[in-house]
């Protein structure tokens, strides 16, 4: 069992995922249309309703579109994380997951490869989205586009790990609608993606607490600060910790002796 084996396998898994993504044009387009609608329609509509005070990392008054752009990046990664989780459940139902699981590699490594593959796909989408936003006059400092890369990697891994964890619990594909209602929507709406924390505090203390402890918020803040060349340490530590916890739980979920796989076999 050499390092080379691990690298070849990782390249095999990541390459397959990227290739599949590029081939599925509909998936690519729909992954882009969602945040673009939010940007062009929702944000434009709310531009005048929501006044934005100057708060870090912003140094001047900003348009609402500028504010929600990092939130929409988070949204792309959130949907992508859930999408790869959906793929895992689909693969399990269709049996192609078995090919992966009977390969002579440790499960944790296979899961991490899947995670890296999903994150790579999401980063690809984010940059295309930012490219379109650039022409819509949402422009961050140039170095910001490079500096968000590590933030995107961490946020993608964190949300992907959450997706993996969920996929170890989901019995069937049909239950996926539940994930939309109980995971994606709460994570997204109870976060700083659409409105800043101080705004939320004005309306509800409970919501403010939920939003500040929401790992998705922290991921969005990490990206928001990175885009303006700043490092948000709290968001970084929080996102990293959430990633580690989700990942460990997902690995346990997929371990034959401890996890859910045995119970699922009872069908």
């Amino acid at each position, binding site marked *: *069992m*050499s390092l*080379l*084996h*691990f690298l*070849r*396998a990782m*390249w*095999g*898994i990541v*390459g*397959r995922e990227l*290739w*599949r993504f590029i*081939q*599925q044009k509909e998936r690519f387009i729909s992954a882009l249309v969602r945040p673009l609608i939010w940007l062009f329609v929702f944000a434009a509509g709310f531009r005048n309703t929501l006044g934005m005070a100057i708060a870090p990392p912003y140094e001047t008054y900003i348009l609402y579109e500028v504010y929600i752009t990092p939130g929409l990046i988070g949204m792309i990664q959130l949907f992508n994380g859930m999408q790869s989780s959906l793929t895992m459940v689909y693969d399990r139902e*269709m*049996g*192609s997951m*078995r*090919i*992966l*699981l*009977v*390969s*002579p*590699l*440790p499960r944790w490594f296979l899961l991490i490869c899947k995670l890296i593959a999903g994150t790579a796909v999401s980063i690809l989408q984010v940059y295309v989205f930012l490219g379109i936003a650039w022409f819509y006059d949402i422009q961050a400092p140039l170095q910001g586009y490079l500096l968000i890369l590590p933030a995107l990697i961490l946020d993608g891994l964190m949300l992907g790990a959450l997706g993996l964890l969920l996929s170890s619990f989901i019995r069937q594909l049909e239950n996926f609608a539940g994930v939309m209602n109980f995971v994606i929507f709460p994570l997204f709406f109870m976060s700083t993606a659409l409105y800043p924390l101080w705004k939320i505090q004005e309306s509800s203390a409970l919501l403010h607490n939920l939003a500040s402890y929401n790992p998705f918020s922290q991921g969005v803040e990490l990206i928001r600060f990175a885009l303006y060349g700043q490092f948000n340490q709290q968001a970084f530590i929080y996102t990293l910790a959430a990633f580690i916890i989700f990942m460990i739980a997902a690995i346990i979920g997929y371990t*034959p*002796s401890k996890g859910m*796989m*045995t*119970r699922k*076999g*009872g069908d």
Partner: protein
Amino acid sequence: MGSCGKTMTAQALKVEDLSFSYATKKALNNVSFSVAAGECTILLGQNGAGKSTLFSLITRLYDTRAGKIELCGFDVKQQTRLALAKLGVVFQQTTLDLDLTVTQNLRYHAALHGMSRKAANLRIAEELERLNMLERRNEKVRQLNGGHKRRVEIARALLHQPALLLLDEPTVGLDMPSRQAIVEHVHKLASEHQLAVLWATHLIDEVYPEDRLLMLHKGEIKAKGTISDVLQITETDNIGAAFKQIAKETVL
């Protein structure tokens, strides 16, 4: 292909006192058997006999709790990766990526087994050639018929030169000529390349005279051995009758 290597034991697969239960149902009860290199063992059992559970345990989709499974002397639970490296599997469902080409599918598998691009290409050509599929290597899997998909899956299972080939009802849904071709090919692999084969089916016409039989019913092995052994145990004169006999009786 087909042997465990010089230092290993002769048994490609050894199952000892294997039991397994789901929450409420006992699926396997004290199952013991072995498959040697060059041997084709047919696992006969009706739906619900425990074939799928047995395969899930051998491939370590589930964890063995009671009993022991060894592949080429490697314990599936303790030395999982060494054991799995010796195993090639063809699952009941098609597990190919329909939108990728035959070669892309096979390369993916080769990568999972840590093969270099060069070694992979060589082995892919060899196995496809053997199955008369070489000229179709650049076609998308979606374009292939059921029989050809199966052939690709057999080629895939053999790429990393395993000692044991597991097949879980590989001919279900195929037409007669495709079935025959696959049955023949796998038997040839066993005899010519010293591959150990464990073939689960409920179709008795897939049994060759020299095969060994393993009759599973309600999680227990009711008869095992050569065809004549099994006929003797069940006091019948053909496999079909033996199969029926076993399904009827609870204890033999």
